[in-house]
């Protein structure tokens, strides 16, 4: 241990955020009398430059060797203050934060109660800080490579940025082609750029980039290690097509016995494909894949007298014997860009999506309006009796968004604008159509969005405020039942087609990624960022970052911006070549360890092993911690019967005095 503790205690007013509910002066006065507290002060904003300067001055002039800041959550400013005390030559771990804002002033109303609790929290911090030990951080080399999971526009953009910076990128995509959701879109709002025209070049760049290794039709199976040193295992699913031989000519698909008989995922179920297929013409890689769930050869073991595709393939690329392949590599950082699912409109049965073919989703509309879509861009729908060109069209917004009844309280942020865009595109294709948009609110917040919305309204698209209660059929028409809430008029709108502006949801299979990377979900069930404002691309797992809609609904510009942010963050360890190992690791008292191996069993990181030591002539097994692997969770220490393994900064001898301080009636 170092010298006798001399504690400086700083109580933050946080403007009135703390001082409105906690009598900060009373807390400081109380703390002044606690053991080893040398100075106790209050200040309006401890985290500000002058606030930090106050601490530094005291360390210098009063010879403080321990600092407590009673302020906001340690999750906010622990690092800030660690840095501050370190700058004065103090060990950064001689700092303790008493959280008197998030867990005191903001959640209590009564000044007396708030002050009393703040005093206890401060006493608890004093009890602990006296017994803290100096810790040294160590550094290990970081692997100069990144893994990106998901190759939609977010993954593609992040991959290109990192690869351009000179680092190796492994871009893993589940489906046979990169491109993601953006590849399905026709035009993009508000500029009406052709989606494919701006995405395809990036896809091609990815494929040709010397630093990018594309792993399409693949899945991450295992992630081990820690920031700077992740070991990744990826399963490349068998395509049953030798990609080195496949020229992408497409003869196989034409020859396939199931040609035009299998529903196309890319066309949102509205088009057809073969059992051997390329999802869309601009796919990258431009290689064919056999769908093992439908291919006759793979499901039944035979295909007529022989597989037609094999016959048609001049290159001899078809290989029904192909097996999954496991690829293993190391990376220093990971970006998760797994995207979203669209809301399943059948969960709103009142809109009749499952019953009426002329009720379609926004995503289906994208394919319908697309010149590469199933109808070649002609707007035609089946009204149950005949195929018609719809002349009266209704859009319904907020389907599956802002709707507690389906469990989604959030706004999906893109539906207002894609509805406007689609209304515009419809107006171009069917100039005499009557187009009405039913909305709750219109949110046109981005650059050029409000202007675009105005333009669409001027194009004789009628916006009616009202949330339709029901859609039903009357003759050949669909009836949208709604109340115009601006005029309080009940309406029954007869239309030929309804477009449901479905919202964005977390992916149904996100659990797999959560488990792999130890991510958590926020209230909306999207992946949770480390901090909603200040660390929006980071996660609680060091070295793992988020990009795009997996973190929450976003439009393309925001997705690309976040992807670039994630890329920049991921490059920090890659560029510095070093990562700092958590100093708050577990440590073993070899003199008392009895070598039972309980800690070895519970350690989730295999950071502990039993080694043989010589204790005064006797050979014994004791536990030893690999500090590079230890995350400091402390599970080992609470299973240890002899208390021989303890996480630094969270030792029993540091926690028990905290309990005493909180428990004691004084």
């Amino acid at each position: 241990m170092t010298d006798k503790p001399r504690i400086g205690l700083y109580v933050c007013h946080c403007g009135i955020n703390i001082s409105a509910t906690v009598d900060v002066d009373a807390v400081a006065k109380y703390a002044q009398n606690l053991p080893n507290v040398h100075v106790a002060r209050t200040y309006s904003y401890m985290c500000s430059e002058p606030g930090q300067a106050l601490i530094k001055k005291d360390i210098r002039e009063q010879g403080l060797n321990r600092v407590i800041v009673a302020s906001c959550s340690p999750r906010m400013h622990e690092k800030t203050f660690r840095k501050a005390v370190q700058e004065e030559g103090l060990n950064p771990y001689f700092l303790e934060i008493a959280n008197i804002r998030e867990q005191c002033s903001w959640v209590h109303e009564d000044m007396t109660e708030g002050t009393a609790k703040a005093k206890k929290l401060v006493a608890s911090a004093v009890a602990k800080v006296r017994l803290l030990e100096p810790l040294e951080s160590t550094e290990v080399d970081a692997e100069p490579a990144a893994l990106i999971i998901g190759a939609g526009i977010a993954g593609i953009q992040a991959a290109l940025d990192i690869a351009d910076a000179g680092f190796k990128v492994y871009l893993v995509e589940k489906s046979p082609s990169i491109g993601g959701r953006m590849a399905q879109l026709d035009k993009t709002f508000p500029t009406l750029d052709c989606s494919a025209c701006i995405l395809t070049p990036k896809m091609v760049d990815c494929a040709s980039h010397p630093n990018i290794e594309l792993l399409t039709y693949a899945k991450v199976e295992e992630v081990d290690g820690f920031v700077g040193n992740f070991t990744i295992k990826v399963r490349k699913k068998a395509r049953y097509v030798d990609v080195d031989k496949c020229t992408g000519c497409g003869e196989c698909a034409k020859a396939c016995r199931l040609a035009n008989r299998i529903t196309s995922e890319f066309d949102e179920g509205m088009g057809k494909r073969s059992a051997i297929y390329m999802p869309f013409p601009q796919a990258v890689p431009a290689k064919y894949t056999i769908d093992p769930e439908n291919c006759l050869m793979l499901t039944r073991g035979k295909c007529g007298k022989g597989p037609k595709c094999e016959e048609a393939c001049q290159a001899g690329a078809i290989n029904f014997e192909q097996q999954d392949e496991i690829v293993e590599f190391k990376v220093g950082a990971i970006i998760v860009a797994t995207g979203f699912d669209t809301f399943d409109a059948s969960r709103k049965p009142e809109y009749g999506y499952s019953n009426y073919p002329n009720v379609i989703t926004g995503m289906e509309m994208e394919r319908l309006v697309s010149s590469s879509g199933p109808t070649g861009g002609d707007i035609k729908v089946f009204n149950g009796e005949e195929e018609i060109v719809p002349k009266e069209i209704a859009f319904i917004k907020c389907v599956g968004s802002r709707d507690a009844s389906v469990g989604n309280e959030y706004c999906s942020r893109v539906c207002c604008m894609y509805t406007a865009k689609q209304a515009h595109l419809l107006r171009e294709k069917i100039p005499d159509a009557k187009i009405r948009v039913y909305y709750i609110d219109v949110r046109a917040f981005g650059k050029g969005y409000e202007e675009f919305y105005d333009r669409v309204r001027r194009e004789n698209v009628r916006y009616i405020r009202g949330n339709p209660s029901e859609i039903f059929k009357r003759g050949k028409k669909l009836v949208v039942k709604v109340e115009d809430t601006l005029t309080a008029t009940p309406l029954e709108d007869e239309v030929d087609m309804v477009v449901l502006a479905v919202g964005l949801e977390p992916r149904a299979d996100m659990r797999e990624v959560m488990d792999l990377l130890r991510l958590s979900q926020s209230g909306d069930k999207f992946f949770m960022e480390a901090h909603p404002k200040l660390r929006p691309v980071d996660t609680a797992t060091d070295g793992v970052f988020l990009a795009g809609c997996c973190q929450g609904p976003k439009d393309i510009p925001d997705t690309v911006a976040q992807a670039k942010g994630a890329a920049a963050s991921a490059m920090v360890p890659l560029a510095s070549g070093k990562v700092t190992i958590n100093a708050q690791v577990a440590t073993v008292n070899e003199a008392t360890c009895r070598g039972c191996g309980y800690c070895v069993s519970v350690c989730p990181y295999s950071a502990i092993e039993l080694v043989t030591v010589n204790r005064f002539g006797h050979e014994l097994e004791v536990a030893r911690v690999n500090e590079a692997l230890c995350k400091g969770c402390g599970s080992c220490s609470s299973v240890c019967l002899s208390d021989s393994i303890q996480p630094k900064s969270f030792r029993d001898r540091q926690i028990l005095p905290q309990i005493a301080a909180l428990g004691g009636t004084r």
Partner: protein
Amino acid sequence: MSEDFEPNIVAFLCNWCSYAGADLAGTSRIHYPANIKVIRVMCSGRVNPLYVMNALQQGADGVLVSGCHPGDCHYMEGNYYARRRLGIFKDLLEFVGVDPRRFHMSWVSASEGHKWKEVVEKTVEDVRAAGPFEGFRRRQIDW
């Protein structure tokens, strides 16, 4: 028991889920009783069940341990170990005659600010009903 008895409750929260959830309750200005005082640990797996005993001995009327939901542990499994150890410890306390209302465990995620409030309210209500814990408090012993 006295009407104005304010229970003193010590809570152990894991850094990643429950502590963050409690912070979120703060950021969202969700009000709850001040009886609860938190000790932050990195993982609920860090909570040695003897902490619960120690808290009761050192003057707490009740104890709460909260961690990530099963499957969500930042350290993968810590909360599972915590659940097993604290579960059996709760059985022990109850058998020795400690009112089971004095010790609670909960799963509160980083996004469950509201749940945190509910957990705190339930715990405070239960401990209040159980009354002051004089059981084996250290200071009850005459020096």
